[in-house]
């Protein structure tokens, strides 16, 4: 029942991604309506005693998942300088939702069962199971109405900025080659006079006495033909921007690196958070209440972490902050590593008895540090992804929002499969079996950023 929605969300994300190429309002409206209908169906299923209706409701809810639209909006409509802050806000909204959901469910459960009627439908039951459905359908209805009346089509300033940056880089390389051709005439005293003008201007060194504009500078007969060719090729790329082949052509190395980071990060996150209930029950005999409390604290801690990430993003580059966040995650994961299990992994004599073993305090500390680090990293990597993705992809279906969603969901599915496999190998040693590969993936991510540090500089 729960697993249905994410899989349908994955399918619908491609459609929304295509739809948002031209418009934002209509897909959000459509998604809101689907959410309303899906939740209503889910809530009504109890009255009709229909499992099919319940599953259909969950499937429709999944189809109405607006995350890819939200991600794309952040990438398209926020300037580069605010991109990470917006991504952090996105992560915060996600975490807040995840923390608020269970809390509200418990509140609704405490209200008690009562009956009410809806027009065109038979008498409805409100209880802990149907209450969330009714509440969410009401919220989505209000949200859809707000969208209908108040949502204005945004200016895609982020996308424009991305295009401008690419043009600047292209012009810079053009000038570089131009200067390179003439370097022989400019050699003096063994020093080659070589400059990339736009690079300088981009970084703040404006020429003081320039009498000619950049346009004049570019319009030389030798480059006109080249420029025409470029325009033609750009047009062609615009036409085929939604195509799969075009997507594969435009996936550059920085994009692959970012996708790998998202993938590995997601698996590590699942290894830390996804296994909490089984590990804590197994090792410390925790109840679901304790687990829920840990998740609640995790959810709450993400709020200040996201605010801090947004604040720091104004002073530091994404690649630099991503490195730090991953290092913090690795540090947190060290608390979760149990060396005693390496020596005695069969019996239970030393299980949680040795001072070196991972006790509940160590587990909570490590879990909080690692989770905070990885959540903070989410903002930076998502922002980085949206900045390194070429404009040809960014304005098409396979934009950074869709790629992040697909890779993230894939990572989550692999992470869950990984937990299952490790659980089958040994429940006794599950913590180490998850944490050691998870930490290796985080370390690999750090190494990946360090090796490609220059490539990720945006």
């Amino acid at each position: 029942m729960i697993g249905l929605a994410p899989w349908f969300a994955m399918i619908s994300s491609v459609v929304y991604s295509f739809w948002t190429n031209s418009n934002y309002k209509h897909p959000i409206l459509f998604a809101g309506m689907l959410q309303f209908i899906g939740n209503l169906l889910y809530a009504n299923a109890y009255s009709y005693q229909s499992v099919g209706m319940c599953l259909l409701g969950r499937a429709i809810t999944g189809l109405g998942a607006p995350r890819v639209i939200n991600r794309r909006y952040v990438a398209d409509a926020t300037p580069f300088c605010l991109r990470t802050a917006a991504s952090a806000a996105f992560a915060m909204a996600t975490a807040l939702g995840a923390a608020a959901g269970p809390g509200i469910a418990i509140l609704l459960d405490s209200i008690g069962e009562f009956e009410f009627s809806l027009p065109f439908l038979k008498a409805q039951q409100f209880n802990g199971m149907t209450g969330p459905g009714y509440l969410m359908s009401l919220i989505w209805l209000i949200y859809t109405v707000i969208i209908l009346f108040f949502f204005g089509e945004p200016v895609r300033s982020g996308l424009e900025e991305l295009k401008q940056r690419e043009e600047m880089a292209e012009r810079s390389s053009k000038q570089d080659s131009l200067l390179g051709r003439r370097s022989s005439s400019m050699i003096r005293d063994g020093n080659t006079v070589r400059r990339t003008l736009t690079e300088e201007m981009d970084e703040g060194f404006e020429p003081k006495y320039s009498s000619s504009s950049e346009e004049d500078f570019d319009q030389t007969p030798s480059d006109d033909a080249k420029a025409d060719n470029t325009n033609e090729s750009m047009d062609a790329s615009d036409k085929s921007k939604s195509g799969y082949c075009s997507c594969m052509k435009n996936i550059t190395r920085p994009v692959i690196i970012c996708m790998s980071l998202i993938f590995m990060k997601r698996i590590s996150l699942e290894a830390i958070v996804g296994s909490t209930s089984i590990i804590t029950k197994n090792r410390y005999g925790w109840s679901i209440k304790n687990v829920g409390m840990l998740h609640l604290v995790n959810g709450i801690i993400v709020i200040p972490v996201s605010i801090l990430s947004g604040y720091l993003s104004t002073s530091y580059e994404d690649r630099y902050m991503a490195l730090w966040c991953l290092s913090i995650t690795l540090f947190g994961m060290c608390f979760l590593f149990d060396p005693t299990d390496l020596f005695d992994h069969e019996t239970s004599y030393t299980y949680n008895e040795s001072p070196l073993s991972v006790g509940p305090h160590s587990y909570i500390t490590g879990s909080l540090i690692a989770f905070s680090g990885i959540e903070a990293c989410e903002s930076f990597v998502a922002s980085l992804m949206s900045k390194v993705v070429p404009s040809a992809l960014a304005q098409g279906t396979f934009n950074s929002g869709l790629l992040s969603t697909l890779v993230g969901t894939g990572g989550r599915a692999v992470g869950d499969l990984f937990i299952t496999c490790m659980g089958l190998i040994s429940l006794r040693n599950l913590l180490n079996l998850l944490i050691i590969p998870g930490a290796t993936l985080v370390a690999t991510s750090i190494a990946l950023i360090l090796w490609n540090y220059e490539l990720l500089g945006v």
Partner: protein
Amino acid sequence: MPGYEEYHQQCIEPTWSSHYISYTTIKQTLSSFRSRRRRFTQLVDSSDLSGYLALEDYQQLLGASSINNDEDASSYFQYGNYVDAEDALQRLYIIERKEFSSLLEQQISDAAIFYEGTLVPRVRGLIDRGEFEEAAEQLLEVVAFVTVNIITFRQLLIRYDVSALLVMCIVHYSFIHYHSITHYVRAVQLLQGFYRSFSGMPLNEWHLQRSVLATTHPVHHLFELEGVDKLEKEIILGLQQQQQQQQTDNNDVEKQQLKEQDFSIQMQGFLHLLEKTDRSLHKAVAGHLTFRDRVTTFWIKIRQYLAFGFQGRGIMMMNEPRSSSTLRGRHMKQEIHAIGKWKQTKEFDHFGSKHGGDDDKSKSSFQQNLKEISPENVFPLFLNLLACFFFMMNNYIIGVYVCIVCVSVCSILCPSSNYISLLPYQNRHRRIMQRHWEHPMQCPES
């Protein structure tokens, strides 16, 4: 990692090498100050009279150096055979400052005279002859010469201040050990008066405003880059005129434009470097230390505290050269390295902006960044974030109920079991978990 000295060598134009400030010479002078202070401490230590120093030893100490004494130590201290260690140290410090200032003043004067007397007229001559391209290149070299000297001058002032910090460390030993704590505080206050300043005025200001050099001395012109602005304008205009004359050939025009823009940008680059080093110097004058220095001083304080608490002569540790020489202070290595690279490639590498942490430009405030977003995009952005919040809430509000139900039947790998990937293993897990849930500490093996 190469030090400032190595980078400085890369910046030197071979034909003008004798006219640069000799960083090596002055650094050696500073290191001789350090060794002399160490010797001074040893003398105070081995003195027969506690807290005093034999006049003969003190004269030997001063005589061993190249200090240009204008008065004899015996006439200065008219006490007899012994001098108070506090007075002796104060005088030693004044002599050192005088020697350092004189040496630095002499070197910067030489550089300034060469700049005003030789380099600027040479560029002027090229402009007068209409050789603007040659003049542009020459002017860039001249500005590089000026920038290297000014940065080295500033770097040496900071080095000198670090050297003053070392004096503080000696004071710790000399006066706490032999006098009371009141004496120590007084000594520190005395030295603070000179610390990073000359009679209360920052050394760099003093060198320009109150030094013995007249206001018309070339050194003032060197610091103000007098004449460079005018020469730059003339060269740009000359290049533009040449460009207008050569309009028939498009390639030449383009090449000319490139040179003109390139020249302007590089001039701006040098000015940027000078401004940056000026800011660094002012920070140093204001007492800003690097993080590493703060850690070192903190460690010294801890050691001092421990020494006081647990051993009588533990304060001796304060005097270890190794601990005090770790104080590095601010430096201008990045800037001089940038000029060294410019000498080789004729382009700047935009040092300091790699991490965005040090560059003031990248430190634009969050409020300023907020103005960048289009106003019409703000509310839709909020609505999008709200949608994200509702969607996640929706997932978990329903998910949690199902989770609770699942847990109750011991078939949970929450939230891992949320996904279809688990389905093939669900039954197996259920059996394992059923046993495990009942006896968690017995660790059943799957």
